[in-house]
């Protein structure tokens, strides 16, 4: 809003701006708010009107000022005259002007939105110091087909042994229980090695950050707060440093405060990544690692050095490090890899849309120019210079372009938000796309360039012809070549629209299919949340089992609760563990032939609480204890894979490597869509919580009457008031979120597809309408010599429908390749079937028929006598 207003005010001379600028901004702001209250039409027309007003009066003021100071300025005056004349002519043909401005606005707006997003996420360097030298480190094991995160001890050895980097850090995002004055809460925590802060350029606003020495056992109880946490917990008090924060039941000294780290701005506390526990295993490839290359070192040189150290580690620790190598990727490349696809796909669609929009506007302008041949011929005959007329047309185009650009910014605002939502639903973004000054400039330049581009064609045909010829032929319009150009444009538009519509239809059907899928459980009225029982209070094993079984008992005793249970990870929550499972009587499979299945720890009551179906056998019960024989539940898919002949209850399974004693299958569960409605069913098995206790569990509570969060927190607090309840979400919402990004993508493509068809219809309508106007005389003659109204109508219908049918044919054929290309970009996109293609064809042709019918009806109402007299 501010930057736009400032841009508009630039049309006025500086003295005027100094005197009235602030007031004008206030008036514009008030009017903008009023327009937004008034509704969509007022909002859409606000900026074009404001732009037209600013251009006209700003330039008038400039010209008046120049006249006052330096006499005449004919160049500026004639330009001003052009602008004023352009505004007046455009104002007279309000319908055409509105169509052109709206068309341009859609094209420019969508392009600007995509540019904004691409600019923020892909074109601008990452918001870290020396971002071009930052690389991401990955461990790669060719033999095991693994490529991904790194193990911390390996990282420490690389850091010590590689000379090509001047900083490096391993980190992971985690969570912690923070005890406060009014109960406990769950906060996001970052576990980082010492150089992390300098790597991402986080300089402390208060106190200091910790170094690598803080990772030594005994020194690790320090914490650095984010500015957000500092404000929230300590009210930005400078005394915060030196205070104590209780994290997971252990006192930590607050040593400093740092600003939010881009892309990790949800993290509230930073703790040292200890050299003990899980992080000390060379087999635990669970940590992200970044490094900054020294200047003038290439990625290849650095990779060679890293791998020299990796080879040494392999010799030193053959057990854990056999086959492990390091791969380096520029950080920007790694972070944008996932976005590239979505932005490229949407970008391609938008470019097609802009193409339609521009050719449409060109068509509209050409037919307008054809109508105005006589006017320009008269002006030429009266002595107007040819250059003057060409300039007049170009001025009109630029004015239209600027107005379209102004309206396009409103469109861009909305689309940027929409597009950001599509991308952010998958993962966090390190920079929120906003409409920046750069993007503003891009939109303005683009709108003027499009103005000139489509202004050129009519200006060239008009400006060169001789006035006598034009006056003589004025009645018969643009002639054959102009008509053919416009028909070609309508054809191309229709074809592009068909391609987009096929894509939209495909995405819509697959979304519909995903919505129809039976998840295999009943997500309604199930509230879920997570609780972590910290090691400091609960230790291992027995105490954990005790805590969670008390919790489910007390929750189950609430009057509104039908059943309650805990599990290690909720369906569709995106975190799951896999293990390999074999029958006890089969040999351990060779590498590459393992049967990997989803692994779940659950308590008695979970099956009922989540509404899964139990097909055979029983659920876990209180009788399944740590000391009782190991048991398991398997789902239908796994039972079928293990025992193709049927059965399963009472048989024994084994997890090679991890378990020595086989587990008895006590029940078979119905299959569920565990990873999302749009994902396939996976084999899965459960073990009882009492036999594999964990610290963090998700709790599911099936309610029969409305259940509040307060009842949940009160129940947890009745057992341990220091434990926070977090991630409270209804199971049905989790299920909806699992297809949120698919839904957003479908909406976007369907919207663009719809727009494309609408624009193409406008284009086709324009062609036929112009044809009718130009051929009035011919129609008159035809009717005079006996053609009937329906014959005349058929003449134009045939013309329109020929274009449409050829275009639909080409479009459907092209959609075949378009879909094949997008299959790489979009998960699960199927090739279009004949029914879908037929439906799209019918739809486009139906719309084309409507767009042709209207002007064709006008044609058959031509009065032959009047048309011949003209």
């Amino acid at each position, binding site marked *: 809003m501010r930057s736009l207003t400032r841009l508009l005010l630039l049309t*006025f001379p500086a003295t*005027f701006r100094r005197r009235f600028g602030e*007031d004008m901004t*206030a008036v514009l702001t008030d009017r903008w708010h009023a327009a937004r209250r008034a509704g969509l039409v007022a909002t859409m027309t606000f900026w074009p009107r*404001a732009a037209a*007003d600013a251009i006209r*009066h700003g330039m008038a003021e400039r010209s008046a000022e120049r006249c006052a100071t330096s006499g005449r300025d004919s160049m500026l005056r004639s330009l001003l005259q052009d602008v004023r004349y352009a505004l007046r002519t455009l104002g007279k043909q309000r319908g055409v002007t509105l169509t052109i401005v709206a068309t341009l606005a859609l094209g420019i707006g969508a392009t600007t939105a995509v540019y904004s997003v691409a600019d923020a996420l892909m074109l601008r360097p990452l918001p870290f110091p020396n971002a071009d030298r930052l690389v991401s480190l990955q461990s790669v094991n060719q033999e095991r087909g693994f490529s991904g995160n790194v193990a911390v001890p390996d990282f420490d050895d690389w850091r010590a042994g590689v000379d090509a980097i001047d900083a490096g850090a391993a980190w992971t995002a985690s969570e912690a229980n923070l005890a406060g004055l009014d109960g406990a809460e769950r906060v996001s925590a970052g576990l980082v090695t010492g150089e992390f802060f300098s790597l991402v350029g986080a300089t402390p606003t208060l106190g200091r950050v910790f170094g690598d020495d803080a990772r030594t056992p005994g020194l690790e109880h320090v914490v650095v707060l984010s500015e957000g946490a500092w404000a929230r917990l300590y009210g930005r008090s400078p005394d915060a440093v030196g205070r104590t924060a209780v994290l997971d039941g252990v006192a930590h000294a607050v040593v400093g405060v740092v600003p939010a780290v881009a892309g990790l701005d949800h993290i509230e506390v930073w703790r040292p990544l200890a050299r003990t526990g899980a992080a000390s295993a060379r087999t635990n490839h669970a940590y992200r690692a970044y490094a900054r290359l020294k200047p003038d070192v290439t990625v290849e040189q650095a990779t060679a050095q890293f791998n020299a150290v990796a080879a040494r580690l392999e010799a030193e620790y053959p057990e854990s490090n056999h086959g492990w190598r390091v791969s380096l990727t520029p950080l920007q490349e790694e972070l944008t890899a996932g976005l590239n696809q979505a932005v490229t796909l949407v970008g391609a669609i938008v470019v097609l849309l802009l193409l339609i929009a521009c050719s449409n506007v060109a068509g509209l302008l050409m037919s307008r120019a054809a109508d105005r041949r006589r006017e320009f011929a008269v002006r030429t005959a009266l002595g107007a210079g040819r250059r003057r007329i060409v300039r007049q047309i170009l001025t009109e185009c630029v004015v239209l372009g600027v107005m379209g650009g102004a309206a396009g910014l409103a469109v861009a605002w909305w689309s940027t938000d929409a597009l950001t939502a599509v991308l952010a639903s998958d993962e966090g973004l390190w920079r929120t796309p906003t409409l920046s000054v750069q993007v503003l400039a891009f939109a303005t330049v683009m709108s003027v360039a499009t103005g000139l581009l489509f202004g050129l064609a009519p200006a060239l045909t008009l400006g060169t012809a001789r006035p006598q010829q034009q006056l003589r032929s004025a009645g018969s319009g643009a002639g054959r070549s102009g008509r053919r150009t416009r028909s070609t444009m309508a054809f191309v538009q229709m074809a592009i629209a068909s391609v987009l519509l096929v894509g939209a239809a495909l995405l819509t059907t697959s979304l519909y299919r995903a919505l129809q899928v039976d998840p295999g459980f009943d997500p309604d009225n199930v509230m879920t949340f997570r609780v972590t029982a910290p090691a400091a209070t609960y230790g291992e094993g027995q105490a954990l089992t005790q805590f969670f079984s008390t919790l489910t008992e007390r929750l189950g005793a609430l009057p509104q609760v039908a059943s309650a249970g805990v599990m290690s990870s909720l369906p569709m929550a995106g975190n799951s563990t896999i293990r390999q499972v074999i029958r006890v009587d089969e040999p351990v499979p060779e590498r590459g032939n393992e049967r990997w299945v989803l692994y779940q720890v659950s308590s008695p009551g979970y099956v009922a609480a989540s509404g899964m179906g139990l097909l055979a056998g029983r659920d876990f019960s209180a009788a399944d204890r740590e000391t009782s024989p190991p048991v398991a539940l398997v789902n239908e898919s796994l039972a079928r894979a293990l025992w193709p002949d049927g059965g399963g209850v009472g048989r024994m399974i084994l997890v090679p490597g991890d378990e020595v004693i086989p587990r008895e299958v006590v029940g078979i569960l119905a299959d569920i869509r565990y990873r999302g409605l749009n994902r396939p069913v996976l084999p899965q098995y459960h073990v009882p919580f009492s036999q594999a206790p964990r610290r963090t569990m998700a709790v599911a509570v099936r309610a029969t009457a409305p259940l509040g969060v307060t009842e949940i927190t009160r129940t947890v607090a009745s057992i341990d008031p220091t434990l926070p309840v977090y991630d409270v979400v209804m199971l049905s919402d989790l299920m909806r979120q699992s297809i949120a990004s698919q839904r957003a993508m479908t909406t976007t493509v369907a919207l663009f597809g719809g727009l494309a068809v609408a624009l193409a219809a406008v284009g086709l309508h324009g062609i036929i309408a112009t044809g009718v106007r130009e051929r009035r005389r011919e129609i008159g003659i035809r009717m005079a010599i006996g053609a009937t109204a329906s014959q005349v109508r058929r003449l134009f219908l045939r013309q329109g429908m020929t274009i449409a049918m050829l275009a639909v044919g080409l479009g459907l054929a092209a959609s075949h390749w378009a879909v094949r290309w997008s299959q790489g970009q979009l998960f699960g996109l199927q090739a279009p079937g004949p029914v879908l293609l037929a439906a799209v064809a019918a739809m486009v042709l139906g719309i084309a028929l409507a767009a042709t019918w209207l002007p064709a009806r006008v044609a058959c109402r031509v009065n032959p006598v009047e048309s011949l007299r003209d």
Partner: protein
Amino acid sequence: MPARRSNDIDHHLPVKPVAFQILLSLAEDERHGYGITQDIAARTAARMSIEPGNLYRSLKAMLDDGLLEESERRPAPDLDDQRRRYYRITPLGRKVAMAETSRLAELVAEARGKRWIRGKA
């Protein structure tokens, strides 16, 4: 730029339609820019909508001509934005408005004589 003030009322006639509307808006009250556009929209039943560029160019010309002046009075701080300028009509502005009204009235009377307006002549 030097102000083109002139006390000769005829020198200011005829008054442009936008300027006349502004004078009408300020006849009784002091208003700020947005207030003027609101008042004009209300009086003309939204048939006339003045965009900011047009408004301030007219205001500038009228200030330079001495038809309007900026009011030094500001509204109570809690009522409105203090930074906004308020405008009021000058004695000259009032005289010009009255002269323009009589000029228009004469024109209308003449038109009535030609029976261009229905009703009593």
